[in-house]
């Protein structure tokens, strides 16, 4: 349970680091690369969250609906 909660800090950390990178790149005047970084961070977090979500749905299926 507490070990799983570490994923929260992971995601929040990714969010903050991506925001910092975005700000730095913007200051350097590289708008496109800054946008790209934000998109990449979003996709990274999306992958993590999708893994967790599929785990949740599998668990609900096996508990409530009696199938794999």
């Amino acid at each position, binding site marked *: 349970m507490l070990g799983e909660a570490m994923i929260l800090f992971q995601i929040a950390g990714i*969010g903050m680091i991506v*925001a910092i990178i975005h700000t730095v790149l913007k200051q350097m005047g590289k708008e496109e690369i800054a946008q790209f970084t934000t998109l990449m961070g979003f996709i990274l977090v999306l992958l993590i969250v999708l893994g967790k979500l599929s785990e949740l749905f599998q668990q*609900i299926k096996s508990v*409530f609906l009696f199938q794999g």
Partner: protein
Amino acid sequence: MDIIIVVSIGIVASLLALIVKEQNSSIAFFVVVVTGIIIFLFVLQKITGILLLIEQLGERANVEGLYIKTILKIIGIAYITEFGAHLIRDAGLSAIAAKIELAGKIIIITVAIPILTAVIETILHFMPGG
């Protein structure tokens, strides 16, 4: 002391979400989603024990297995629907959330059709001359 764990995870998650929201609101939403998933997974382990109890009670009371299975299915659908609808309402899309709730209700009724027909048949059976 499980509830303390759940509440502290909720508080920490809301703090993190508030902090991240200032810089990157889409990732803050993911923090909220993952919090919901973690708490739900935690509760699901407890629910398994309750469901076992319900099944045993049903067997002892000679309730037909189909009915208990249907009820469990309905509870599961209701949980999933609530989870999704609340998350989407948090993201600010209450129109889609309302549609998800509607879909949940309709799917629950379709799952419950065997029970409904059984009830109606029983009532018709009681009626004189039916």
